[in-house]
């Protein structure tokens, strides 16, 4: 009665020289903990997170395995899996973890580290979508879903997928065509500016 759902991606089989990784509490762990506020060392690999993960069927590595990579300081491994991008942040794992590790928080931290290091995201579409989403907020202060959808489709060169849904949404009055214009916009843009300045200062 054992059924394995889904298929794992083409995970690259590697031999990891553990002694070449950082000993003890690694730098990667430190970075992740600083962002996710959680102690990855505490994970004892029980797999409760992955057993209940609704997206794990599409992941190259189970969330538990990503925790292991962080524990070992395997930076390349952790940042290369599509797992960190396919985490939907539904927090089922975090809520159930018997060691109170914030697994979803770790995924979030790894995504941000990947961005900071300007790596090519292991799932380009997910990353692209978030970029465009955030840029759309920067432009208008509020999100125009129609604009988001169109820009995403242009950028992902996938203009014709979902075209039927798009049209029928418009017909149902669900895609507002007129972008919002209001005072908050300037303030939101100021927020983006301050964050940019802080980043420049940091680097």
């Amino acid at each position, binding site marked *: 009665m054992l059924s394995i759902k889904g298929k794992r991606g083409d995970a690259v089989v590697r031999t990891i020289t553990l002694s070449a990784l950082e000993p003890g509490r690694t730098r990667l762990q430190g970075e992740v903990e600083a962002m996710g506020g959680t102690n990855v060392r505490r994970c004892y690999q029980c*797999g409760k997170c*992955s057993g209940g993960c609704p997206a794990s*069927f599409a992941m190259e590595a189970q969330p538990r395995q990503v925790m292991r990579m962080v524990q070992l300081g395997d930076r390349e491994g952790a940042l290369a899996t599509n797992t960190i991008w396919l985490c939907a942040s539904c927090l089922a794992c975090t809520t159930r973890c*018997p060691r109170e590790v914030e697994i979803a928080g770790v995924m979030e931290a790894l995504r941000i580290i990947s961005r900071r290091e300007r790596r090519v995201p292991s799932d380009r579409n997910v990353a692209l979508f978030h970029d465009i989403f955030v840029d759309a907020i920067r432009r208008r202060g509020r999100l125009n879903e129609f604009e988001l959808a169109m820009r995403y489709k242009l950028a992902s060169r996938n203009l014709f997928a979902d075209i039927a849904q798009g049209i029928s949404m418009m017909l149902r009055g669900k895609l507002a065509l007129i972008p919002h214009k209001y005072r908050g916009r300037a303030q939101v843009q100021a927020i983006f500016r301050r964050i940019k300045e802080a980043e420049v200062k940091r680097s």
Partner: protein
Amino acid sequence: MKRVGVFLCWCGSNIAATVDVPALAEYAAKLPNVVYVEQNKYTCSEPGQEQIRKAIAEHRLNRVVVAACSPRMHETTFRRTLASASLNPYLLEMANVREHCSWVHQDRAEATAKARALVRRAVAKVQLARPLFQSSIPVNRRALVIGGGIAGIQAALDIADSGHKVVLVEREPTIGGRMAQLDKTFPTLDCSSCILTPKMVDAAQHENIQLWTYSEVEEVGGYVGNFQVKIRRRATSINASACTGCGACWEKCPAKTGNEFDLGLGQRKAIYVPFPQAVPNKPVIDRDLCIYFKTGRCRICQRFCTAGAVEFEQQDVVVEETFGAIVAATGFEQFDHAVYGEYGYGKHPDVITGLHLERLISASGPSDGKVKRPSNGAVPETVVFVQCVGSRDEAKGVSYCSRACCMYTAKHAIMLHEKIPGVSTFVFYIDVRAAGKGYEEFYARAQELGAQYVRGRVARVYQRGDKLVVMGEDTLLGAKVQVEADLVVLATAMTARHDAQSLARTLGISYDQNGFFTEAHPKLRPVETNTAGIFLAGACQGPKDIPDTVAQGTAAAAKVNNLFAKENLLAEPTVATVNEAWCSGCLWCKPTCPYRAIDSKTISQRQVGKILTRQVATVNAGLCQGCGACTVACRTGAMNLLGFSNEQILAEVDAICP
């Protein structure tokens, strides 16, 4: 003339790595009255102790300071060393430079400076030490065992066999405890009742054992050798000597409820014996359920009792007894898995615990030994065992491992494969812990019989149609797996009794953060408590299986027998003492004493030729436990505590302040 010897221990590198011991030695040599300083790799070792003895003789030392580990660890050791060198053992003072210094600080300079202060303190205190002598108190050679499970039964039998009287108190109507609920026992698959029931009968029939079931300890006073204990003997409503145990009463009784012994899987009446092999095999009336006690009408049981043994008018009786020693053997409770929403909050009837399965497998259980799904009575084809439910879960359960679950699950799997041909079993585990004689082999046998072990903690259990879906990760495959099961058995954690803390307070013993009673030393004094004369056996001290429980029961009995081997006990001499010349006789000290050790007496004094009589306080050294509360209540400073005198503590304060 005070001649102080200072012995500095390196404790291998435990102290020496952080504290500069040679520099400390140089410093100690300059302290007042210090005539001899020596360093040792291990002062507590036999050569180390020999050095002390030698130095005492050669340098005519009359005070000794050992700077080493905690006095809680080795004060007794070094006191004995002094005694063997014919020096009064209370002329010793320890400086705790390990637990309180080298292990908790890293900076060598800071740690060494602190060690200097600690040695200075010890030297200052020891100057004012006086020789003290132990007094003796008589021992009442009668033991109280609280809890009639296998631990308590074993302890009671072993004490009784040595010729001492024992009272075995059990809260339930029968002795037998958890073990009586089990079907078979790992790793030999002995039938639990077959090995337990004879012991229960032995305990009941032993000439030295009084069995008080349906009874609870309410108050404990006194001290080792002389505990005064109040025990409530609840009204059973049955005249035990008249009752023949024929069973006519419980057959006719119209009031029913779920049988606690079968964890609600079967039923019992208001007048009942918990299970057929109960000891004593006499019923009790559950007054909360009994129709007569609720409405004043019924009395059917009384009508059918030919022996006339039913006595509705019985009352609880509180008796006060004296004991020389107490064994606590109150056992454990099962963790309530209703906290796990992901496992259905305890609402699915086919999600049961290991103990439920024991009752289902047991030939004397509610299903006559046939394993059936509680929901529909069908024989399960696929069974999933979930390990670590509550155990090893800091978020929703307890942090510790419950120790017995891996093995009883292997037992369950083996038994299911024997009972149900073609059954599939899956055991979801995090780690299999099979450290015990014959345990690993037993686990291998379960696998050989077909139990499929899946490494991963179960994430979810939910109902889909008639089946239970169990979801988890096979962490060895790195893949999410699911099983459609008929029955899910949870290995729930063993937890302390919900009221263990209140019993601990009654007994005056300590308990850990999980509510388990604390042993005096985790390795070297495993069945003693920090309260002299009170011992521990079984799962009230921490989760354990039957072999360990029985071993502890026997060990606790050995400790009691040890105590009872003496007619008198030597009492600690660090007790309160009164300076009669200063005492004004106000007796403010008296009410502060928790042991009623202080009284007043009249003394005669010759003053300016006249004889004057006046009242002063006096301390019973046998009763005094040396807490010192009276010393602070004393306004004239007449009350003092030997070994912790006002002068000594002030000297310590002076010595450690900058």
